[in-house]
């Protein structure tokens, strides 16, 4: 228990990247094995973490807190119910992504592996940081490798796509940096000492206008990452151009950073601003759900279809966050994992098709189901998971989101439920055109079904999908304590602020016992 | 010989150097104009430091001169180089210095 488990998980991939530097780039096999070994080691450690994680404890666990640069900048890591599964998801997907790159990346294999490992460190770090500055460092650190992954290994319009991706996200995160400094200064003024600890900062009661501006600054950064309508247009471009592995991690993990930011920072730190902006956020989320669905309906490229479906799905997650009660938050967290798995798998699958045919246009396919029956079955499972078929993971998250949203606001929920129809329409429409129908195309006629290595990628994901779908309780029970405290704390903070609108520090955060939908009835 | 006079002379020389730099059209003379401006600065140093009882200004002047010498060596080499490539040292012919 003295081993710094969180630091190990975070920096093992980075260590792997450093080891890779010393392996000559011609030795693909050794590079590959080394990279996988480090990623798998991180995953194994994350499993240890999950097993030893105490689901009854609401606060952060495995905390590591050391002074770092002064002025409140600490190296502060910790994990709680909100971040647990996001870390696991990242550590779980990273080895699979590396596995998938074995054949799909021909040139500059070493760099690819390097960037992937650095990316993993950045992403895990974001979820584990409890210090705003550290959070920001990892946030940006995750951006850079992604820039190279798309910019170097991407498709034809990769330069355009990366520029857009980077400028978009940079624009957001710059504002966030300003926000961080403002928070630091305000805290110093109120308490006389510096701190950037998220929990310390959430004890501040800020004036309304400060909250508004700070929430907008942070919210923009997060909204772009999610991506919330109308900040979504970087996503289809980035996805279409990105190599398979980058697409998978982009959709499965990077987008979650935005929603995670709202849950971890946006809502707890600025409860009153949230009260004012939550309806607006919800409206944008609902628009995103419906809009993303309709856009997905008319895409011609499989990848951009899945990208727009992400806009729609993440809209639901954000709507659940905006509803902010125990049920909706549990749903949002579960749905983030689900989306990571199903969309990740869809991108893997599109990668399989692309690797074989070098096209992603829906119209170039047809009858693939006859040529690749096993693949078709697995793809269908991913589709069904994505459209929320009960028994698979998507439903468990979706129903909780719906229920939580419903408890907060019925109209939002009614509009959100349209995703049930839209998701089926665009996903099955695509499935029909790609897998069904006669084989009309030479490229399709020459297809071979997937083999062992690809099965090794798909099977774990599928098993996890069924596990979450059938026994979501095993996952939900570890997050419940944290989530219900979060839900209650913010509610009580709002109540407290109503009494006095004067900037100050709250001594101790005392969650009221009643959590969940109690107050909405 | 007041300080004002010395500084005044230095100002006049500096401005003349500036004007020369802008008015002249060949690199070589412009180079010379730069040297004049440097000397004007040296003069100001010495004039203002007189009576302070310290020799630091003279050391600075010495450094300025050495740097000017080095600069002249490299600069003139560049002028030669440009001349070989363009067969001209008129500044109007040299417009590559842009993005």
């Amino acid at each position: 228990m003295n081993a710094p488990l969180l630091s190990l998980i975070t920096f093992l991939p980075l260590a792997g990247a450093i080891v890779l530097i010393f392996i000559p780039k011609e030795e693909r096999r050794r590079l590959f094995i080394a990279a996988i070994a480090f990623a798998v080691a991180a995953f194994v450690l994350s499993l240890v973490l999950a097993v030893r994680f105490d689901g009854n404890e609401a606060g952060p666990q495995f905390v590591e807190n050391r002074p770092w640069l002064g002025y409140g900048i600490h190296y502060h890591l910790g994990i709680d119910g909100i971040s647990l599964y996001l870390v696991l998801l990242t550590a779980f997907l990273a080895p699979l992504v590396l596995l998938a790159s074995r054949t799909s990346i021909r040139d500059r294999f070493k760099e690819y592996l390097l960037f992937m490992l650095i990316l993993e460190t950045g992403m895990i770090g974001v979820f584990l940081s409890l210090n705003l500055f550290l959070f920001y460092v990892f946030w940006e650190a995750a951006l850079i490798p992604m820039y190279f992954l798309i910019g170097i290994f991407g498709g034809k319009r990769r330069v355009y796509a990366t520029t857009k991706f980077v400028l978009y996200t940079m624009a957001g995160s710059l504002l966030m940096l300003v926000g961080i400094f403002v928070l630091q200064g305000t805290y110093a003024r109120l308490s006389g000492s510096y701190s950037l600890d998220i929990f310390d900062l959430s004890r501040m009661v800020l004036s309304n206008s400060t909250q508004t501006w700070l929430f907008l600054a942070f919210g923009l950064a997060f909204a772009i990452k999610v991506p919330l309508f109308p900040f979504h247009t970087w996503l289809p471009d980035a996805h279409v151009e990105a190599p398979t592995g980058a697409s998978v991690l982009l959709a499965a993990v990077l987008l979650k950073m935005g929603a995670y930011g709202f849950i971890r920072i946006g809502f707890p730190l600025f409860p009153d601003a949230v009260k004012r902006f939550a309806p607006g956020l919800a409206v944008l989320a609902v628009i995103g759900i419906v809009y993303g669905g309709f856009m997905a309906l008319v895409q011609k490229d499989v990848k951009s279809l899945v990208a727009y479906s992400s806009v729609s799905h993440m809209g639901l997650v954000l709507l659940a966050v905006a509803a902010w009660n125990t049920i909706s938050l549990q749903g949002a967290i579960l749905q983030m994992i689900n989306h990571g798995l199903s969309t990740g798998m869809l991108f893997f699958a599109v990668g399989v098709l692309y690797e074989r045919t070098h096209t992603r246009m829906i119209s170039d396919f047809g009858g693939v189901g006859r040529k690749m029956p096993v693949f078709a079955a697995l793809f269908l499972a991913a589709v069904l998971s994505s459209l929320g078929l009960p028994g698979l993971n998507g439903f468990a998250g979706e129903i909780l989101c719906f229920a939580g949203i419903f408890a907060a606001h019925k109209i939002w929920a009614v509009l959100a439920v349209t995703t049930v129809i839209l998701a089926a329409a665009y996903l099955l429409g695509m499935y029909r055109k790609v897998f069904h129908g006669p084989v009309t195309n030479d490229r399709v006629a020459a297809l071979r079904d997937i083999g062992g290595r690809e099965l090794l990628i798909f099977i774990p994901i599928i098993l996890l999908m069924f596990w979450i779908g059938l026994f979501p309780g095993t996952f939900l029970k570890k997050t419940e304590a944290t989530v219900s405290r979060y839900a209650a704390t913010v509610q009580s903070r709002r109540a407290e602020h109503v009494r006095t609108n004067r900037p100050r520090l709250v001594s101790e955060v005392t969650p009221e016992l009643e959590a969940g939908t109690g107050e909405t009835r | 010989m007041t300080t004002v006079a010395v500084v005044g002379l230095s100002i006049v020389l500096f401005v003349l150097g500036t004007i020369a730099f802008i008015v002249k059209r060949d690199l070589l003379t412009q180079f010379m104009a730069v040297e004049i401006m440097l000397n004007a600065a040296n003069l100001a140093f010495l004039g203002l430091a007189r009576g302070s009882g310290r020799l630091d200004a003279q050391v600075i002047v010495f450094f300025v001169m050495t740097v000017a010498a080095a600069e002249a060596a490299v600069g003139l080499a560049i002028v030669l180089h440009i001349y070989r490539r363009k067969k001209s040292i008129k500044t109007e012919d040299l417009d590559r210095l842009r993005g």
Partner: protein
Amino acid sequence: MPVFVFIPLAPVLGALVLFLFGRRLPRRTISALACSTIAAAFVFSVAAFINLLSTAASGQNILTYKLFTWISAGAFRADAAFRFDPLAAVMVLVVTGVGLLIHVYSVGYMSRERDYGRYFACLNLFTFAMLLLVLADNLVFMFVGWEGVGLCSYLLIGYWFEKPSAADAGKKAFLVNRIGDAGFLLGILFLWTAAGTTSFFSLEIAVAGSVIAPSLATLSAVLLFIGAAGKSAQIPLYIWLPDAMEGPTPVSALIHAATMVTAGVYMVARLNPLYSFSPAAGQIVAFVGALTAVYAGTIALVQNDIKRVLAYSTISQLGYMFLGCGVGAYAAGVFHLFTHAFFKSLLFLAAGSVIHALSGEQDLRRMGGLKKYLPRTYPVFLVGALVIAGVPFLSGFFSKDAILVSAFARGQWFVGILGLAGAVLTAFYMFRLIFLAFFGNERFPAEVKSHIHESPAVMTRPLAVLAFLSIVAGFTGLPAVLGKRANLFSRFLEPVVRPAAEGNLSLGAEWTLILASAACAAVGIWLAYLFYVRNTALPGRWAARLPRIYRLLGRGYYVDEIYGAIVVNPLVRGADAVYRRFDLGIIDAAVDGTGRAAGYFGKAAGLVQTGWIKDYALAVLFGLVIFLGVLLF
């Protein structure tokens, strides 16, 4: 663990094995495995049924068993729990019994298919999902089965997925069902917020205690009925069912006639306290049911595809069931569900036998005179037709009559009369089918004729069993005129389903009604005889005289086209336009524009860079002058 928990076990294991290894196993093993799992489920069902009868004697009619807590967060909770009561018992017996017969039939029917394992895997999975649906103890868990059967339906309709029409039909079925499911989901959510629970037991208590506001109850009941309308193919969501006939015929028999499509009826019956609590919702159900019954019947009149006739007939019969439930005669609705499962699967399987014999021909115009070629199929087909037409003392007669009697007894004259009209239509189109297929000239090509053969025993034996059941099933639910306690069926269901309306209908009126419905059947059959045997020129003449109406019915009132024109196309085109104009044209252009503006600004600033040293020097000098000026003045 009580025995009913084991009912769904065998099918799901069978499905799992077949999905994983179906491609490597020999056909005999596959058929044996698939049939034996269903047989096991049937045995368990019978055992559970007998067990229920014995416990019912001691007053324990409703058995529940919780497997585990499925989804739970905050106040939301859904258990994976089973509930076995008389209603579930009836459904379980139908699903496993008819399912077993159809599995056996499929062994013969599908014997030459390539993806044999996939077929049976889906069929087993379907049985499992249907059993879950029937046995679920709460609405959320029921939704698992609800969607599961939808998925299997999708997979099986699109079984021949290389055929574009089959693939499209599968997709359409799933999508239309999803529209219903969205309603269903919202219904669940409304009920949950109103009552704080989704379990049937607690819901019943909540309704009985009037915990739920009437308006909310009506709203959720209507929303749930939208789900039912999707699954059970009622107006306006019936459009997927005719297309679903693209699937293999046994699938049409099992899923699209006997079991899955009745799930909506089952659900309404299951939630009968709610629908009784909300008269408005019940009225809507009754109206939609009655309308659908007649509407689908009119379309069935002129269809030429043997399976499409049966499909519209199914829609129409489902309408009857909803009619029954809507007027409060849940037992009668379920009774019709029960008998319909036998006779409609009989008809479908018999039609399958005909199709099989004619090497895949489904068009009635290219049949005729098959009576002598199919000596075993013809009689059972005839039995099926007689039963559905409502010939007295056959099961269809009793069940349909029970519904109509309840409707009139409740004073629902309008829907009752619609029901009677539907009865005439039913008799007519069924006998039209019989006459066109089995009587008259042989209109099939010679080549087909040379291949005509009666189906193997593995197919005809299940038909015989179903025919027998279709005839006798009615005697479990004799009408009240034969004695108050004659209706075993509704007495059995009483613990869960309230008894039908107390007859304020006099005995005489009831007799009159029975005679009337018998007369309706007779009229329908007679008309069909007139048109298609006595004077075969008549249909052609009528079609020539009323071409518009004929075409209107033939195309199913153009509903597919109308939906396409007013819903699907505008949405898709609109989405495309929005994508081009708004997403790319405005949002993305704004983003790009920002980037480009920065670029232009840079270029404009770059103009200052002339490349002439002199200009730079001037700029420096200028700066110096300004700087000094500012500093000094």
